[in-house]
C-alpha cells in the first residue's frame, strides 16, 4: 500500500475505535529524520572520547592512571555511548516501524491487528539495550541463584 494513496494526509489515522493511532506521517517522518541527523554526531563523539582518553593515557606517563583511564573507556564511555546510540536507534526504528505498520503494512490486516502491531512496535522505543546481557534474560539459561 502506498502511503500517498491513503485517503487523508496529513493526520492519517488507522486503528480501532477503542485505540486510535492518529499520526501525521509527514511530521513524524521529519522528526525521525531530524533526530537521526542530530544523533549522527554520537558516533563521532564516541570516537573523539576514545581519542581524548588515549591521549591522556599517553600523556599521564603512569601505568596506574593509564589502567584506570582504560577502565573508564570501557565502563563509562564505551558502555555509556553504546546505551545512548542503541537507545536512539531503538526509538527511531520503533517509530519508523509504527509508521510502516499503520500506513504501508498488509492492507488486509484488520484495524485492531494493526493497532496491536503498532503498539508492540512502539514499545520497542524504550528497549533497554543491555537487557539481553542479563543472566535472567538469556533464553534457555538457568540462573544459578
Amino acid at each position, binding site marked *: 500500500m502506498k502511503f500517498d494513496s491513503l485517503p487523508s494526509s496529513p493526520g492519517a489515522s488507522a486503528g480501532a475505535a477503542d485505540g486510535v493511532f492518529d499520526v501525521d506521517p509527514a*511530521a513524524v*517522518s521529519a522528526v525521525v529524520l531530524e533526530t537521526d541527523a542530530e544523533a549522527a554526531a554520537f558516533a563521532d563523539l564516541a570516537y573523539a572520547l576514545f581519542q581524548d582518553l588515549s591521549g591522556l593515557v599517553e600523556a599521564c606517563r603512569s601505568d*596506574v592512571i593509564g589502567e584506570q583511564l582504560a577502565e573508564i573507556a570501557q565502563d563509562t564511555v564505551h558502555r555509556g555511548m553504546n546505551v*545512548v546510540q542503541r537507545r536512539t536507534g531503538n526509538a527511531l526504528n520503533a517509530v519508523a516501524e509504527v509508521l510502516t505498520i499503520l500506513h504501508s503494512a498488509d492492507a488486509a490486516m484488520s484495524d485492531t491487528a494493526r493497532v496491536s502491531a503498532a503498539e508492540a512496535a512502539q514499545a520497542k522505543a524504550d528497549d533497554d539495550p543491555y537487557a539481553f546481557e542479563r543472566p535472567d534474560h538469556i533464553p534457555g539459561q538457568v540462573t544459578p541463584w
Partner: protein
Amino acid sequence: MSTGIDLAAFERMLPDSEALRARADALRDTGAEVESVAASAATVWGRLQGQGIYEGPGQEIVFSAFAPIRTKAADIAEAMGEVRSAIVNYAEEAAEIRRRFETQVRPAAEAFAVETAGQTVSEWDDDRDLVERQNAIMSQLSVLAADLDAAQRACAQVLARISSGTSKETDSGSGGDPLGFAGAFAQGAGYLASGALPTTASQFDAAAKSGHGLAWGRAVEHDNGLHPFIRGIGDQIIGGYESFAGLLGKRGIPAQLEATQGLLFMLGSLTGRNAAAEQNRAEMLRQMAQVDLFKTDPSRAAGRLAFDIGTLFIPAGAAAKAGTFGRVPARAAHVELPAPRLEVTTPPTPGLHTIREAHPGLLDRLRTWAQDHTVDPQPAYAGGKPGGGHQFDVVRSEAPDGVAGGGSTPPGGGTQYGVQLPDHMNPNGPGRNPEMQPRIGASEHGPGEWRLQSSSPQGREYQEFITGVHAADGKVPEYILEYDKVVDSVTGAISRTEIRMDNFHWDKGPPPVQVYSDAKGHYAFFETRFKNSSLYNAKLDEMYRKQFSNQLTAMLQKGGNTRLEWHFLEKKVADDFLDRVLSDPLGARLVSEGRVVIQWTPMP
C-alpha cells in the same frame, strides 16, 4: 657517566603538565558535547508531542524514549568532567615535582657531574664526601619519585571511583579508600596487594643501593677497602630480609619465604607474560582510537613508569635479593594485571543505517514524507548521509558544458590559453612532477594559494605519493581555496570559508584542466578493527559530508575547466566512497563527465 645519575631517565617519568591539562579539557568538552547533542536530539524528538503529530495508545513510551538517553549522556559528561578534575590535580602535583626537580636536584646533579667529570665512579668512591653527595642527590630523587608515585596513585584512586560509579560516595574513613583500591589492583594478580600503597622514598633508596640500581641511577658505596663481593653479599642478605619483611608488615623467616614465593611468582609472570600483557594493552588502545604512537612505543603510550624491569632479574641469590626489590616490583606488577578488555562492539550508528537495514525502502518513503512536511522548513536530514536528497551547497557553477575551451579565466589576467601554463604532470606517476615543488604563497594561475599545513604522519607517505608534493618538518604545502559556504540553508546565509586541497596542478590537456586532488590512505582498518562497520561508515560519511562536498562546492564556485580527483590507497574504501558520490545526482553527473574522479590508486 661520572656520577651514574641519569637525569633524563628520571625526567622521562614526569608528565608534561600543560599537555595533560589540555587533553583533560578536551575530554571534558567532548563529554559536554555528548550531553548537548542528546539534549538537542531530545528537543527535536519532543515535537512528536505536538497536537495531531503522534497520538495513540501508549504514546508515552515514545515520548519518553529520550529521557534515559539524556540521563546517560549527562552521566558521561559528568564523568568526563570528573576525569578532567582528577587529571588536572595530578598535573598540578606533577608540575610542582618537576619544579623541585629543576630547582633543587638538577643544579646539584649537574654541578656534581662537572666536579667528577672524566672519572669513573670507582675512581672517586673512596672519597667519602663525593659519595655522600652522590647519595644525597639519589635520595632527593627518591623523594621526588615517591611523591610522584603518591600523586599517580591518588589520581588513579579517583579515576577508579569514577569508573565504578562511586565517585560521589563519601569516604568511609577506613584508610581513605572506600572503593578498596588495593583490592581492585590485587584482583587478578593474586599477590602484592601492597602495590596499592605508594612507594616510599626509603624503598626507592633501598632499590638504589642494589647492584643494578634504579632507572636513573644507583647509590654509591664508600670504598672502605673490603672486597666488593663480600660487601654485596652482606648487603643483599640483610637489606633484603629487612626490607621485604617490612614491606608486608611481617617478621620472621616464614614471612620472608612467603614474600619470596610471591615475588618469584611475579618474576615468572613478568618473564612469561609481560610481552603479551603489553601487547594486549597496546591493542586495546589502538582499538580505542587507532593512535599510531602505540605502534612505535607501546610502553610510553600506555603510560608505564620507566622502571628498569631488568633490575629484577638477578643473577644470583634471588631469594635474598627479593627483599631489596620487594617494593619496586610492586609497581611493575601493575603491568601484569589483566588489561581491561575493551570489547569494541561499536554500536550501530543510530538512525538511518539501522532503519535502512531493518526496513528496506522505508528510507525513501521517509524522505518523501518529510518533503511533504511543510510546517517545518528545516531541510530533511541535515546530517547529509548519502543515499539521496543531499544537495551540495553550490552557490553558482560556471562549469562549461563542453570541455573544449572551457571559457574560464585564470586569475592573474589573460585567458587560460593566453598564459604559459606550467607542465606540472608527473610523467612517472600520479600528481605533479616531484621536481616542480610548489612555492608557498604562489597561486600557480589557480584560484587559491599554497600554504604550509600540518599533516598526520600516517597519511603523509601516501599523500606525497599521490600529489608529488614533499613534506618537511611535519608540515606539507597544501592548496587553500576560499569559497562561499552556505551555513544556514533556511536563510541562505553564507560564510567565507577556506578549504584545503592536497594538491593543485595543471593538466595541459588539451584542453588545459585545473586538477584538484586529495589522497586518502589507511581507512579500511576502521571496518576490520571493529566488530561491525558502523564506525567505518561513519568515517566515510563524515569525509563525504564535511570534506568532499565542500571541496566540490569550492571547485564549482571557482569555475573553469576543473577536475576533482580523490585517490584511495584501498580499493574497498574507494568503491564504498564512490557509492556515496554516485548516490547524489550532481555527484553522479560530474563523475560521468569526468570532472569528479574517485579512484583506487595503490602504491607500488
